[in-house]
């Protein structure tokens, strides 16, 4: 069985205008969404106390909310968890509202709920203090930065610098869009999502490198052909592999998403988005960027002109300063 009878001969680089439009629209939407809606931080980053409660029968959220409000007089958020038949709620409270009574938290919840409910079980409690929230935020950011730097160095070392740049551009593209979709769906941003984002980085990179590897090999094989042709050929040659791998991985992650239970649902969801975006970017983003930074090509681009000009300006500045001295 084969996806393609023979290696396809599609002009993928020729479609780069369409790709630019798609990517730009998605990126813009992500950035605009981000700045308008903002990320909804989960308690991992914002701090707070989360209590997951399983009821015997389907609980009335309004009643639960009223009971908590009466007792704690604070802003709380209540969401259902899992399937409706699970009868589970997640109650999120500001951490300081229970700080004084923290060592009686279980009793407190019982006191609050027993006014209207008789049978329930506290299944999970998570508390993150404000200090840790900030610490986790900076740690998450740090790890993302270190991952990116590590990747740039490795690719720069194994390939050429422009491949490193292209890979990182593709990564930014993927992560921004994935996060944008998260913002759009008003999903909470938690530590697990950070793990997912970092996995997306790893995965998308995996894909990108497979293509780059082909380009490198074909450049050596056909030194006479022009780069555009070689890049096109390479993308085409690795296309069936890209599709196959994406499909199989998608299969596994999708199973996890559907059946893995709710705690892991957001993680697998982020992975699914990442898979789609990552596959797209390795074909339509990374390779065109490599082309863009190809020396022959790059000298014709506006960016190059800007760079050259600014370099002239800096050198002018330098010479002026010298004169003053």
């Amino acid at each position, binding site marked *: *069985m*084969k996806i393609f009878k023979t*290696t396809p001969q599609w002009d993928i680089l020729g479609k780069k205008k369409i790709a630019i439009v798609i990517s730009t629209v998605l990126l813009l939407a992500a950035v605009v969404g981000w700045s308008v809606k903002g990320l909804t931080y989960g308690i991992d980053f914002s701090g707070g106390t989360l209590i*997951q409660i*399983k009821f015997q029968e389907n609980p009335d959220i309004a009643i639960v909310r009223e009971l908590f409000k009466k007792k704690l007089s604070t802003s709380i958020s209540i969401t259902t968890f899992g399937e409706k038949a699970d009868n589970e709620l997640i109650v999120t409270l500001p951490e300081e509202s229970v*700080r004084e009574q*923290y*060592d*009686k*938290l*279980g*009793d407190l919840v019982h*006191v609050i709920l027993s006014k209207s409910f008789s049978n329930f*079980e*506290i*299944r*999970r*409690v998570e*508390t*993150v*203090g404000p200090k*840790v929230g900030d610490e986790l935020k900076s*740690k998450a950011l*740090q*790890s993302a930065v*270190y*991952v990116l730097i*590590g990747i740039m160095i*490795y690719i720069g070392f194994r390939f050429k610098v422009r491949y490193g740049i292209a890979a990182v551009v593709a990564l930014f593209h993927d992560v921004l869009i994935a996060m944008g979709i998260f913002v759009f769906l008003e999903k909470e941003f938690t*530590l*697990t999502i950070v*793990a997912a984002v*970092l*996995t997306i980085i*790893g*995965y998308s*990179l*995996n894909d990108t*490198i*497979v293509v780059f*590897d082909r380009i490198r*090999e074909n450049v050596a094989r056909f030194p006479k052909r022009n780069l555009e042709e070689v890049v096109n050929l390479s993308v085409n040659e*690795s296309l*069936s*592999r890209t599709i*196959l*791998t994406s*499909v*199989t991985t998608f*299969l*596994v*992650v999708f*199973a*996890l998403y559907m*059946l*893995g*239970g709710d*705690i*892991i649902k957001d993680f697998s969801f982020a*992975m699914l988005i990442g898979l789609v975006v990552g596959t797209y970017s390795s074909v339509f983003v990374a390779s065109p960027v490599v082309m863009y930074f190809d020396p022959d090509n790059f000298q014709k681009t506006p960016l190059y002109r800007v760079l050259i000009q600014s370099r002239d300006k800096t050198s002018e500045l330098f010479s002026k300063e010298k004169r003053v001295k």
Partner: protein
Amino acid sequence: MKIPWKGLGILAVLLVAIVMNIPTVLTYMPVEESATQKKMEVQLQRMQETIAPLKKIQLALVELKQKRIQLLAEEGLEFTENHSVLKTILKDNFSIEKGTEGIFLKLKDSASEDVYISDVADQLNGLFTNVRKIKDIRLHNKQAAIVFEVEKGKRLSHLAEPLKTFLGDDFEISYRPEQSLYVTREKTRENVINLGLDLQGGMRQDVGVKVDEVVISILDRLAEELEDNLINDNINYESVTRISDSEIELLLEPDESFALDEEVYKRLLDRNYEITSRDSGYLITMNEDEIERIKKRAIQQALETIRNRIDQLGVKEPTVQLRRGDESIIIQLPGLTDPDQARRVIGTVAVLNFQLVANQGSVENPGKDQIVLYEEIRDPVTKEVLSTRPYLLEKKIQLPGDRVRDSRVGFLPTTGAAYVSLSLDDKGKDEFAEVTRNNVGRLLAIVLDGKVQSAPRLNEEISGGEAQISGSFTPEEATELALVLRSGALPAPIVINEERTVGPSLGLDSILKSMWALALGFVGVMIFMIVYYNVAGVFSVIALIFNLLLIAAALAYFQATLTLPGMAGIVLTIGMAVDANVLIFERIREEIARKSPIRTAVNTGFQKATITILDSNITTLLAAIVLFQFGTGAIKGFAVTLMIGIAASMFTSIIVGRMLFEIIYLRKARLEKISI
């Protein structure tokens, strides 16, 4: 004959991987063997016979002076010191005397010095109360375990320890609160994959210590002492005040000149302080180094205190440790059954003070040496604070709580109410005698963490060094209080930086669901690969199974903890392993399409794909390593399985995959076609 070293090597790895997985499989596989069944039946009978008589005994009196404990037993009870559970508590330190008033356990003269009657009484009391909560003891069919059914919501914390000794090292006890069951079964083996707190349930806390408060209280005390000395020396001073986290300001009256050079002041203000002269006095600053030292010591002390308390809580495998280079303490309590109890035991500061209730003055307008503290009146059932009762106390602490040598639970014979009794050390004994002698007729408040517990009247001098805290305690609360007082006070209050608690039922849910997902995804991929690549697809499936075996073996070898994100890591690894296979097979297909001879096609395919696989996997490995370095708890688990998985998948897809090609195809002299 040429020896196929490579093949043998791979076979050896495979065998090791399988062997490494045996303990894990045995541990988590439900066994139904009749032999185990028989063994457990014998155990069950032993247990029933052991428990039954204990239900008929209760603790009557502890007579410290006569060194004996009085027990009350129902009639007709045969009582010997050979009773196996009692033996674990009494050891050989007690002899049994039966009298008309009941049974006495008398401390033998030969008993070692460090046996405290009060401890033993405490344990016995806990044991008897606990045994009464047991409704039924029976065999649990499927799991070859013995279960103790207890009254709903009750715990057997005091029974657990003696039972463990009684059962021997091969058994362990776990608690399932939702079914009110205690389950005893044979212990887990070594080199087994542990389940993380999110999968088996339990509590993880990251607590900070308010170390700044330690420094501040030291400075406050210093300021007070300075003031006392200034009064003694008749110095005209205006004020001595702490003005920041590290400074005390001493202001003198304008016409007073005074140098801090007397012996007393030199002793108080040692080299840990810097003294700067000012126009109208002095500024006293604590050295940075000293502040750091105090803080470090406070953390260390808090760590030890918490560890001490947790050890007495009876949780299976607790860990209490300092977080690397940080000022917080990480506490992990797997399989924890009562989070609130743990929260209390960890978080109670337990600073105990004895202060006199003031004779004059009013609560509304306390004097300079007076302070108003409150007693909380609680609902006996819900434990809600209903009201508070103010007390006007003298600020002076008559006796600090660190003079307490031991504390335990007792029950008033009249009402049966629980109290906590304290034994003071020698110094405390003398001080307490003096305080009580000088203040007969007055009220002495017992203050715990700034809250008045009780304020009994002093009717006479108390010279025995024994004191009691009574209040409206439940037996559990009294036990907890005795526990925290026994293990000493925390140097400062703690703050909960982070807590993650997962109930056991949720953990079970999670593991079942993700296992299912994993299995299904795996089967889906296998079918896909076989349909798409035929025989080569079968190779990849074999490699994939091998891969999973290797991952599990590595996790077992490192005794790694499998968390939910860890499971996700394995899923991702499956994806990557498949990718490696796809890369190889696509290359081989390409080579075949270019009309290369089959043998060359396979070799070139592997060769070229290997470079790609290495490049892509190493970058992912890089990401995993960073995650491991910077991630916390859950993310670390993900990173660990990802790292192990990547290493395993490179090995299986490149080396094992190639081996399979060699065995099935490349050995043939004439190779014209392969199924790929």
